[in-house]
């Protein structure tokens, strides 16, 4: 992730989170969008008893997405 990101004191917290995600997507277009796409599994932060399952579900989706990207890459380049 390149460049220092700073929150804007004039923005609301939600606006700042949105700005941060855009910054991440712009700095890392390959991986950044996956974070936003699957965030709904972790936000709002589940309580302690459900957190591990939510995290595993999020990372499971990421694993699927990365594996699919590899398959597509292989199909394209052999």
């Amino acid at each position, binding site marked *: 992730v390149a460049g220092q990101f700073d929150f804007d004191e004039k923005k609301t917290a939600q606006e700042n989170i949105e700005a941060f995600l855009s910054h*991440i997507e712009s700095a890392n277009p390959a991986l950044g969008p996956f974070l936003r796409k699957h965030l709904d599994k*972790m936000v709002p932060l589940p*309580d302690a008893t459900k957190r591990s399952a939510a995290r595993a579900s999020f*990372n499971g989706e990421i*694993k699927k997405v*990365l594996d699919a*990207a590899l398959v597509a890459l292989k199909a394209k380049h052999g």
Partner: protein
Amino acid sequence: MVKYFLKRLQIEGFRGINNQGEPLDLAFKTDCVNSVFAANALGKSSTFEALAYAINGIVPKLERLPASDNPGGYYANRFHGTGTSTVSIILQPDDGSDDVAITVTRDPSGKRSVVSTSGFPNPEKLLHSLNTELALLDHELFLEFINDTPLDRGRTFSGLLGLSPLSEFRQVLEVLSNRRNLNTDLELVTLASLKTREEEDAHNIENNLRAAFRGFFSKEPGPSLDLEAIGKAAIDALNAVPVVAAAISVTSFVDVSFETIRNAVKKAEASNERDRLALILRHITALENLAPGSSEDDEKNKLRGSLEKRLAALAETRGALFHELYSVIQKLYDQDTWSDPLQCPACESKLHEPLPDQVTQRLQQYKDAESELKVIQDHWRTSRWPARLKSLEDSEAMGVAQTDRSHASLAALLGGLQPTLDGLDGAIACLDRLEAARQTKRRELLAEKEKLEKELPPSLVALTEQIEHASNLQQAIKKLRISIQRVADLTASLDLRSAWATFIENVSDEFAKAEVRLSTSKTTALETDYREMYKEVTKNPEIVPLLKKSDTSEELHLRLARFYGLSDLSAATLLPESYRNALAICIYLAAVLQSSSTARFVVLDDVTSSFDAGHQWSLMELIRTKIAYPANPNGPQVIILSHDSLLEKYFDTMETKTQWHHQRLQGLPPKGLVYPHTQDVNRLEDAARQQLLAGQTDLAMPLIRQYLEQKLLHVIRKLEIPVRLDFSIRDDRKMVGNCLETISGALDLHRRAGDLILDSGQIHDLETVYMPSLVANWVSHYATATGVSLSPYVLLGVLDSINKVTSCFMYPCKCEGSLQPRFYKNLTAKACGC
């Protein structure tokens, strides 16, 4: 952004307030400080909770009750006929637009509904926008703030600064970037182990290929293997032998059928011994390829080590049933079904240690055992020796009968959920037996090969060996290609998943740093405010508080920048309770002033209960003059709920309604009505007169004492009459005497000095009529506690004397147009030029 004042609150059928058909109706003013006083059990807390319910949809205290106590059954007033709770509020926008009226009801089934009787389009959304940690503040909140851990305090404080969503998002990223979780969820360690194993396999296959190359071509292969070129050279060499060439119908070496070649040679030579030699050569190669690797002992030791660690971790636990029990207990606390950490939710006995901590520790033991199981499973899956065991059992050369094969059962045991040391020992013994058999078999085959080679013609032996070398070369090329591809796939997968792990770690780190910078900046921005407020409330310049934000985490430390000449010390440790509470209040109020919430009001419930009279007074003055709107044009409307009678005395001192709007709750809750009584400047006098006219002398006397005290103190304050150092503001029976003595002394001093501003009539009336009357009829009786019963008429006269004493310190002023009585500025001058 439009913000909203709280203009009116009506409550019916909620908590301690019944008021069926006649809601408790509290009107609040936006241009002055509001206070609501209620003696104990008169509905003050219910009023606060009703507002909390209207805005937040819950009453936190009820939601913390165990589910078995049916918290939902305690929202409605138990004596209300319909069981429906109704809370209506009127919000006044600060941009001058129309008021917004919202009614929140909770029916007997617990269903909440929100409607705007003024037609506001989305009242629920508006209520939600008011829901900040700064609109409703109570004593408990301040206590928690002081006593929290630095991390919890930091997270609470983020909420005060409007940064809760950032704090929550930071926690989300911390969970997602936890390296241990990433290793487990993305199988990073497993992939790395598989890749290492595959690379080792590729290396072994390459060695086999080189051996087959040497056997076939009778020369060393080059340092780098060109599989295409080797294949082409091999098929050319095979085609050079006529009997073999006749059996080859393909152009690619890897497609050559050696079975066809063997059959062709067999047909040409018609020899069973040659066939046997070919088979022996294949088996010898296969057995040599199944020799143990150099890392086998290390792999076995690692698996044994993990097994021992897991067994030790399991020994610390108490078994599956207790695991279930601990999980349920943790759930009770997480979901707030049970909240008391020092009481067992099962038997309700008191505990010495917090139960959630004990349960977390116990559950961690199960987690440790669980994570070690995963390590064992990975070891079994990625180690080469279990795979060699299977290959030995499956090998045609070994000839192990199906019934004697153990790999499947060992895999179920050591790769399953209950691996044991006995199972590991059994697997190692099995492998040892197979290894011994492999070596014996190889020796026997080598001996038989030697014998056959002597019996068969040398040309046939050479051809047979060449064909088998070529067959081995072909197998090695095929396997090496597959192995190289698998290494490449594993590397790509591992690289990509590791890239994600690094990415999410960097994202989390960057977010955390940005959040710390913002939070630190906002915390620092409050510093001047809370320090000044704290100084004003405590009147102690020797103590300077400091909120210290951690550079690397969400932790927030309460420190003292200065403490009687010392520096950087712990506030929670050194400050007495009242000072700690004062600090929390000042920090919250500073945050309120910086708040960007849509709530333009703050309700303070019982926030001064740990304060003595002096600190209460200071805090109220701070709120009135520095915090609250309109004294602070950008400040919030402040509404104070209190049951402290000392505070009510403060409210009595407010001379006009434009500074303070005070109401007192009266009635008979929870069954009867609760209603507000608005306090005006004549509240005490009116109440005393009513009691006297009803002949209730005993009830009137305390009111007269309060009224007299209030008026005399008012004169002293307005005319800035100096008092002795030991002049007490405490509520004791000598206060009236002290006041009269102080006023008389000051009058005498200025009269002797010749600069007394009072006219001669006023001086005469004071010294010869009113003051003696008060002393004779009041001080000498009630105030000295002689217990003499006074008639109502005498006491009515006392009330008159009180008012006349006050008027003796006033002069007619024309500044407002008509003549109005106005207090002298002091005992030597008027307040204006009239």
